[in-house]
């Protein structure tokens, strides 16, 4: 992730004016939280578009099945995504560029195999018929590979083509769904949707192959990475699981759907997805400013150490870095705060635009607040990982997962008036805890740097 910063700064400070600047922001937002936003956008679009094409009942089942595929694949790929990203960053730091592609090949082969098996098992357990099993498993495998590819896209750093790959895939999905029409039923719609995602995957793989050094040999070093960073596995899993756990609780405790594997809660789901969209600006700002401003300070701090500077210079640079961090955080709170307040104020209009009932306004407002805390929590966790405070990142991720599950369950029991408060409270508490840990660690950063990392930057 760190490598993108340089390119982005060029974009921001380039002579392209406002348009290119905002373009950079959009790219940054999409890459940093690509899978998340993609999922949300797709699901929302399906919400609007699906009904007309394949009938109301199939449409609901269709959305639930796609959501399932997304949730389950994000969860499982989330197990390996963080250690792999870290491994890639290690490879690049060691200038082993020729291992980047083989690592992807190995990881993709494995992911494909494991997810195919998992997909069929899920379908068998759910009693899906042959056609549906095939279509759903195909979708499940393809999106798993897309999530996996995202880690390698940080190496490629071609934001335009990456964005185009995602958009092209989405367009293709919708065209295919319309082309398939209602005649082919649920399996047809899913297969059509899968075709679009396959296009995205193909374009992304092409970008990875073109954008990385020629392969030297096959690489199995990634297994070492998995063993080396066991905490990152848990962090990645807890992070993905926390995003879905409240939805799953809603599906099963208060949701709809006749099939045990095809459950949904249209109101809560849609409110949450919309709320997620409201924090995309925060993610984009985070990526652009943290990667450009903060990362410079971060590197300066470690350079002071490796270049043999006196302690006072190291402490001075640490303070500079910390101050910069607070400035960035304040900026983030200001801008995202304004957007979140706007979303809360204009909640009725926004919900009307996606034809949601008026009763959802309060749930949406609470969820917007929750997403605001959630994005703060996410950025804080990323910072913890930047300083390689894996133990702290792990603690707060698991805390968020547990709180989100527990408090959401309580909120569902309380009833409609409390919908969304579980998630929001969980995000707030986790944010406070993670932030406190970050602050405490930053205050003694020199000690951590030397005692744990022998004075080397954890992220290159």
């Amino acid at each position: 992730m760190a490598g993108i910063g340089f390119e982005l700064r060029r974009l921001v400070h380039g002579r392209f004016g406002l348009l290119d600047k905002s373009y950079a922001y959009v790219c940054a937002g999409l890459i940093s939280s690509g899978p998340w936003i993609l999922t949300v956008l797709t699901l929302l679009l399906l919400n609007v578009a699906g009904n007309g094409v394949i009938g109301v009942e199939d449409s609901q089942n269709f959305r639930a099945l796609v959501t399932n595929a997304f949730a389950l694949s994000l969860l499982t790929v989330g197990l390996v995504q963080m250690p792999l990203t870290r491994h890639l960053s290690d490879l690049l730091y060691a200038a082993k560029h020729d291992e980047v592609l083989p690592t992807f090949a190995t990881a993709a082969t494995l992911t494909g195999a494991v997810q195919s098996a998992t997909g069929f098992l899920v379908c068998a357990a759910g009693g899906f018929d042959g056609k549906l099993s095939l279509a759903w498993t195909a979708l499940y495998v393809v999106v798993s590979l897309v999530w996996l590819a995202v880690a390698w896209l940080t190496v490629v750093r071609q934001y335009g083509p990456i964005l185009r790959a995602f958009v092209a895939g989405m367009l293709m999905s919708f065209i295919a769904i319309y082309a398939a029409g209602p005649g082919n039923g649920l399996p047809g719609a899913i297969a059509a949707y899968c075709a679009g995602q396959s296009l995205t995957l193909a374009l992304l793989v092409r970008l990875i192959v073109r954008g990385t050094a020629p392969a030297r040999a096959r690489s199995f070093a990634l297994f070492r990475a998995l063993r080396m960073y066991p905490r990152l596995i848990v962090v990645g899993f807890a992070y993905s699981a926390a995003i879905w756990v409240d939805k799953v609780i809603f599906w099963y405790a208060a949701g709809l759907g006749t099939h045990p594997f095809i459950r949904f809660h249209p109101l809560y789901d849609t409110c949450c997805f919309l709320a997620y969209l409201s924090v995309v600006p925060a993610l984009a700002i985070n990526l652009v400013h943290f990667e450009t401003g903060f990362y410079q300070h971060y590197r300066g701090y470690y350079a002071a150490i490796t270049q043999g500077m006196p302690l006072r210079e190291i402490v001075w640079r640490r303070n500079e870095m910390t101050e910069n961090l607070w400035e960035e955080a304040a900026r983030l709170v200001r801008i995202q705060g304004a957007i979140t307040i706007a979303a809360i104020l204009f909640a009725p209009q926004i919900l009307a635009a996606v034809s949601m009932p008026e009763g959802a306004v309060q749930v949406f407002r609470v969820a917007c607040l929750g997403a605001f805390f959630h994005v703060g929590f996410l950025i804080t966790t990323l910072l913890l990982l930047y300083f390689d405070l894996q133990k702290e990142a792990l603690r707060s991720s698991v805390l968020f997962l547990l709180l989100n599950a527990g408090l959401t369950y309580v909120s569902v029991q309380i009833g409609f008036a409390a919908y969304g408060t579980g998630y929001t409270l969980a995000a707030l508490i986790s944010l406070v805890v993670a932030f406190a840990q970050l602050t405490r660690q930053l205050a003694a950063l020199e000690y951590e740097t030397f005692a744990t990392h022998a004075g080397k930057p954890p992220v290159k």
Partner: protein
Amino acid sequence: MSGHDIPDVCLVLEGTYPFVPGGVSSWVHQLVSQIPELQFCVLHISPHRGFYDKHAYTVPDNVVRIDETFLQRDERARVTGALDSRQTSFVRAFCEFTLGLCAGDVSGLRAMAAALDTCGGIAPPSGTTLLSRPFWHELVERYTDEAEGESFQSFFWNWTFVHEPLIDILRLRLPRARAYHTVSTGYAGYLAALAKLRYGLPMVLTEHGIYNKERRIEIATAAWIPASRQGRTLLDVNAPYFNKMWNRHFAMLSRACYEQADRIFTLFSGNKTEQVRDGAAPEKIDIVPNGIDVARFAKTAERHQQRDRAGQFTVGFVGRVCPIKDVRTFVAAMRLVADVVPELRVRVLGPMQEDREYAEDCQRLASELGLHDCVTFEGKKNLTDELDTLDVLVLTSISEAQPLVVLEAGAVGVPVVSSDVGCCRELLEGRTAEDRALGPGGRLTPIASPGATARAVLELYANAELRRSMGESLKQRVERFYSQSAMIETYRAIYTKLTRPATSAVGVV
């Protein structure tokens, strides 16, 4: 035999017996072999596990056990969370101790020994201590006090590397014995001092070369310090501050050992002067010179007395052909001698491999000075076969401790012309009044002085009676004061006193 399970004497050794051949190792081997009635154990400090794979000596049966501990264990244990109370007490004691070392105070060792007790005799892994917050705070304080402005990273690594061995060697329970005998200061001296404090038992030190001085020379050349570990930054020991840090460290380790030692023994009074300067109490120090097995040279001495000189005057040089022996001065002196002595024969006996370039240089000098007919470089020879052919032995070394070759020449009755270094004056002129009464065993010359060396050799050439009397004096001196058996008896008496103190008259003999 003591008949007890606990060995009588624990020898605390560093990089020597029984793994590495050499002067100190041979001395230890002699000692344990020739005092068979006592049981010994050896606590040996090696650089790291697996560094030495086999013994260089056949260890006698009375060495009942050999324990090995290591300067670097590479246990990457790190503090996770809070230290437990035992660890805390150890870390605190260690910080106090190291703080004291910086201030020239070694009394913190006592608290270290107590903390070691609370840890069950084995220190926590070095990472636990060195990467703990208390140690970090002390490190930062030291840095701010002494090294502000230096590279902090270099300071961190130097400071850590300086202290790591002090903990790593304590990862082994100190073996029990009735008394401890360390054959150097440094890490071995530190361990022996801790053993004394921990078990309340006597501890003595024998120092052959002055450890602190040797380290100072090594630090100046700095090849021995682990230059870089995987991913770690180079230690900049050549920067004045870090050089000072390491020097002070070893000086303080020596002082800690001097302070705890009940008796200190060394080879000659020059060493004693250095020890006193490094903080040893002079009243604790006794001179116990090394001895040689005089009987081994009996036949050679006999041949020397009865030999036919065949019209030749033979001057010998015995030693490695290397700069510290200053062979060039010797060759130049021989040119001056050859001007007066047409029948001169010069034999250079000693290995030429150590510094080939220098050895070639010396040979070239000899032929340039027209000495190719009379000077022969013969390489390493068995001295019992060769010493009888010499009329005079010459030593031109720039530095020596107690050169064995002077004792060997004495055992044969060959007079010596030597530069006035190390304990050569004691060897040639005598140390005590009784010793001096034997008369001189040769002549002393200033270092790097071919003229003085040549004059002394010519004096001996011109006066056969002087040669004979000097050879005889030296022979008597070696037999009386530098025999191996005298040395062994001294240590036997020391050990007896230590292991069977009058106060606890157990009466096991």
